């Protein structure tokens, strides 16, 4: 049962990722694209955790932690660039 639910969940998350990619391509503005990228990062967390459950291993968990701790820095840098140009000043 878990396996089925897992597959359904993975399918939903992957579909979500596809939609994010759609938004990324569609735009229309730069913030939309960054938002899509940011969301993709969060989807990636989900996918990594789902992978861990599928494989029954916790070896990939830290990758998810890494995204949670650091992933937003990229978004912040991009947003700051769009607004301010200079990221570190």
């Amino acid at each position, binding site marked *: 049962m878990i396996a089925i*639910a897992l597959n*359904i969940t993975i399918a939903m998350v992957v579909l979500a990722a596809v939609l994010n990619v759609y938004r990324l391509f569609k735009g229309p503005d730069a913030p939309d694209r960054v938002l899509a990228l940011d*969301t993709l990062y*969060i*989807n990636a967390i989900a996918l990594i*955790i789902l992978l861990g459950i599928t494989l029954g291993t*916790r070896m990939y968990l830290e990758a998810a932690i890494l995204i949670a701790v650091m992933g937003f820095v990229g978004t912040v840098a991009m947003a700051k660039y769009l*607004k301010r140009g200079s990221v570190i000043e």
Partner: protein
Amino acid sequence: MSTLAEYTIVVMLLIGGAFTLVGAIGLARLPDFFTRLHGPTKATTLGVGAIILASVVYFSFQGEGIGITEILIMAFLFMTAPISANMLAKAAMHLDVDVMEGTKGNPWEQ
């Protein structure tokens, strides 16, 4: 693994997947940047949260002790997601992106 745990896992997984998907649908379908901003910051965050809980339960019932590290992921996500949203909203307002018709109030630029 107990049936209860199994059901919990299944439910959590499905909720998580569903919210993630809904967030993405929102991102894809909502009409302007600011409305789209809502999808990821919450629906997706919640979705990931649910999946994380599923994982916690799953690994806690694996017979190798508890698995709680995942909780931190949620904590970090809750800390950082609003910042991303805030920064992006600021950028969008700065760039003066289109706002959907019927929006009350105005984004301001300082």
